[in-house]
């Protein structure tokens, strides 16, 4: 079944969505959308550096994304420029430096469009192993650290007073994001990765009453977006990565019409 490119794309995309859904919930809860974008943009720099140093591309992208996140943390402590401005600087300069470096790599032909927008139809069996191996590892780390991660998200101060380590949670989430970017880049490209983190999670919010359920719904909706987007791109011969994002957007828009506003958060009206 995995013989043809379309099946491989489906399997890879669904595997990726299962990871970006739950992790994306944290991105939404912690208002890290732009932060995730910045890390994703640095992935192209990671690609260029990997080729220059001839190291494994997934590792190179992970390392650069993690370094950019670390640089941001250090700059934030300086208390000079706002986080907003720092993100703007890091996001676009890392993308620009990546593009310039790629231009110097004349000896290798690089499919720039593939890195920017992804090429999910070119997924190999090896890519699928990386996605599922890495994805299972990321989900396992998320599950094992779920309570401290969530407590640190609700209130770092409270978590710390009650004996948890919110700073560790913060670093852990960044490393997980860097990992997801490294494995997702080939599929949807550096410019569209954060959409798979944010759109399914945002859609899931209206349908969920607990954080755990929201993570699950986000994974399912992300997978549905992948399937719908890929079939759409097959039917109308559109670019696969953007089609997946458009499918996610359509599901989000449909979810807005579902009247769930008072479905959750009910109080027991009987009794006192």
């Amino acid at each position, binding site marked *: 079944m995995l013989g043809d490119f379309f099946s491989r794309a489906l399997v890879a995309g669904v595997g990726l969505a299962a990871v970006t859904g739950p992790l994306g919930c944290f991105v939404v*809860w912690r208002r890290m959308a732009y932060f995730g974008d910045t890390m994703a943009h640095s992935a192209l720099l990671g690609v260029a550096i990997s080729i220059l140093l001839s190291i494994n591309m997934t590792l190179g992208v992970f390392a650069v994304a993690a370094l950019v996140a670390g640089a941001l943390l250090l700059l934030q402590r300086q208390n000079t420029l706002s986080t907003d401005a720092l993100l703007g600087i890091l996001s676009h300069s890392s993308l620009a430096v990546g593009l310039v470096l790629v231009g110097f790599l004349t000896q290798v032909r690089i499919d720039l469009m593939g890195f920017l927008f992804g090429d999910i139809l070119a997924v190999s069996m090896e890519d699928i192993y990386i996605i599922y191996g890495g994805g299972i590892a990321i989900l396992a780390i998320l599950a094992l650290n779920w309570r401290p991660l969530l407590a640190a998200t609700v209130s770092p101060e*409270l978590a710390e007073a009650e004996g948890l380590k919110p700073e560790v949670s913060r670093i852990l989430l960044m490393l997980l994001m860097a990992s997801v970017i490294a494995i997702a880049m080939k599929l949807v490209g550096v410019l569209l990765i954060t959409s798979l983190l944010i759109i399914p999670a*945002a859609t899931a919010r209206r349908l969920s009453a*607990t954080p755990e359920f929201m993570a699950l719904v986000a994974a399912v909706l992300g997978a549905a977006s992948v399937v719908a987007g890929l079939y759409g791109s097959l039917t109308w011969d559109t670019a696969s990565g953007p089609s997946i994002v458009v499918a996610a957007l359509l599901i989000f828009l449909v979810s807005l019409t579902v009247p769930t506003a008072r479905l959750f958060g009910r*109080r027991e009206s009987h009794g006192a």
Partner: protein
Amino acid sequence: MDMRMKGETLITLTNAGVKSGGRVLVEGVDLSIARGEIVTLIGPNGSGKSTTAKMATGVLKPSTGTVTRKAGLKIGYVPQKLSIDWTLPLTVERLMTLTGHFSRPEIESALAAVGAGRLLHAAVQELSGGEFQRVLFARAMIRKPDLLVLDEPVQGVDFSGEVALYELVRQIRDTTQAGILMISHDLHVVMAETDTVICLNGHVCCRGTPAAVKRSPEYLALFGARAADTLAIYEHHHDHEHHDDGCLVGKHGEHEHPHGHVHHDHSEHDHAR
């Protein structure tokens, strides 16, 4: 109630202080909290109340002096404010297990104890200020903490809610024998149940029972004479007697405060050291 444990010292700060970036946030704090004891920190904004509480909970390490905690001290924390974003779906039931696992019956009885039993399935974003405070109390208490730290517990709660919350604090103390550390900048409200009020302004200005602190010259110098009238102390009908023995003046309290500055102008009070 385990009377055997009453009086056991939970936490001791000795000459403790924190410096940050060359600036002294607070210094020379001596305080200890025993089981069943209520200690209230009062002082203007920036006087080091929160810093002192953070040293007690272990969030901040003292740069001078020492902090000794009973081995395995379990802390329950009720934060000053907790704004939970709409994007995070959280029911009261889920909030109760934020930092630890508890069974449904445990959750239900903890909520019932603060009169919030019917809120079990409510979304936290839809609670009123008073309801949310009660739930936060229940969340801190379900851990069966040795020490309960309350940061401005009555902020954003109306007057009747205030009285009810203080009644709750008293009940918690009586039934669990937890030590309680309260922070308040709201000088009108200090519980009569408070064993020791510690008045801070970068250092310990004065300390003693609420009634004694109210009359101490350091307190009056810091907050102005009118503050003595507004320092309403919530009394309960009980057999507790207040000693009017003098306010123990802190080590640094030797009349360094410019007397007679504008009343209630706390933020402008420049305590140059």
